[in-house]
């Protein structure tokens, strides 16, 4: 199914990417910000997978080696292999983000951007 010139698999990931971008602008909770960054990553991964596959394609796994398949019904394996590593990297980045959030919470006792910024400017003020 296409909307105008654009395929469904392109328009929905782009929508989710910009929805989460909007959420990053309007929300002040850091936990929510980390979740929204994960959402952006997910939408990028779906966009990449949509690059080489269409809805209803069969996976690139050949149970019967002698059978001849039509290559246009098989999903592209290259984006899948790249995205498999990207998912693991994404969870590693999220783990580091959460650790940094814990460190910030230990110092400032809050998870809101605004009070944290105020406290940080108080800390950096030179003693007179």
């Amino acid at each position, binding site marked *: 199914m296409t909307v105008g010139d654009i395929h469904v*698999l392109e328009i929905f990931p782009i929508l989710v990417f910009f929805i*989460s971008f909007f959420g990053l*602008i309007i929300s002040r909770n850091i936990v*929510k910000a980390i*979740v929204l960054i994960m959402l952006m990553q997910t939408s990028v991964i779906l966009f990449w997978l949509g690059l080489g596959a269409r809805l*209803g394609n069969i996976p690139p796994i050949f149970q019967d080696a002698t059978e001849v398949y039509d290559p246009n019904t098989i999903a592209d*394996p290259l984006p899948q292999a790249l995205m498999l*590593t990207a998912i693991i990297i994404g969870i590693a980045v999220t783990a580091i983000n959460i650790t940094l959030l814990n460190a910030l919470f230990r110092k400032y006792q809050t998870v809101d951007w605004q009070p944290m910024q105020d406290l940080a400017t108080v800390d950096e003020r030179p003693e007179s």
Partner: protein
Amino acid sequence: MAIALTTEILLVFWVVNAIWIVFAKKTYRVMIFFGVFSLITSVIYLFLGAPDVAMAEAGISAFATIFFIVCIEKYYSRGSGLKAEMASAAKPRNYFKLVAAFAFVAMLCGLFIFFVPTTTEYAYTELRDLYLFQFMRDVGGRNAVTAIYLGYRVYDTLFEALLLVTAVVAVIHLSWFDRTIVADGRHSEVERSRMTKFAMRIVCPIILLFGMYLVMNGHISAGGGFLGGLAFALFLVCRFMVLGVYDLPIEKAMKLEELVFINIIILPIFAIFTGFIYFYGYATEMFQNIYLIAMNFLVGLKVAFGFFVLFYRYIAIERLPDKEEVVEAFDDGED
């Protein structure tokens, strides 16, 4: 056709879920919406013909949920985080800023949609045909995805493993550490009923067996090192659920992880970079299968140890210290 329609309905539900996440007011609601979002995402991946990526997403969603929920529990347990959230929710929203942000994002989205070329221009390339019809001879196995990330593009896997090691090291050096908690073998504060322990004892061996199956069949069917490693890590999570004791040796696990990483580097050097599995001789297919299974096993061990260290670091050791200890912990961290 029916599958395509199913996927389109799921995609609409997916976008609705993202909007729920953006407009949720409480943090635990964000967590639950995110869980539903991940569940739906992995099914969409499956319908796109990517079972490996879908399984990775399903396993990852459980770990992401655990990390987030432990983090939230930490700051809620002190009460001040809750107060801050209530204060920020009670403030009236600035509607002018909201509308301005929406207009800005809508403008960016429109620009992106109308000026970026569509993906149909990139799909169905010759490279795909090369991979699809040559991989059985070049690398072996029946799964093209495994053949790519262990054969054609093995550098990607090496750097991914390096990045996981880096992440584990960074988490360990940034988080607060108390040696006595591990040494005492202290029990967790979360209470469990007897029924939980009984049911988990039934499920644990099934998960371990399933992880072994995924690793061993990684080159023939969907699965592979990453997913087997995630299943092993889920087994360790279940073990924590049954016993609730922080007695596992984390430092040994870290050492083992680094050792496995060195092996992951050494094995491709001897197998691929010397051209060992490319000889078209008598025993080539056997060597190819041995290489693929060994590499999958090593990657699985690597991922399992990495997630095991991350999980225990979050659950067991990283406890929020009392008020007096706060400054002290920070002084240690900054040195």
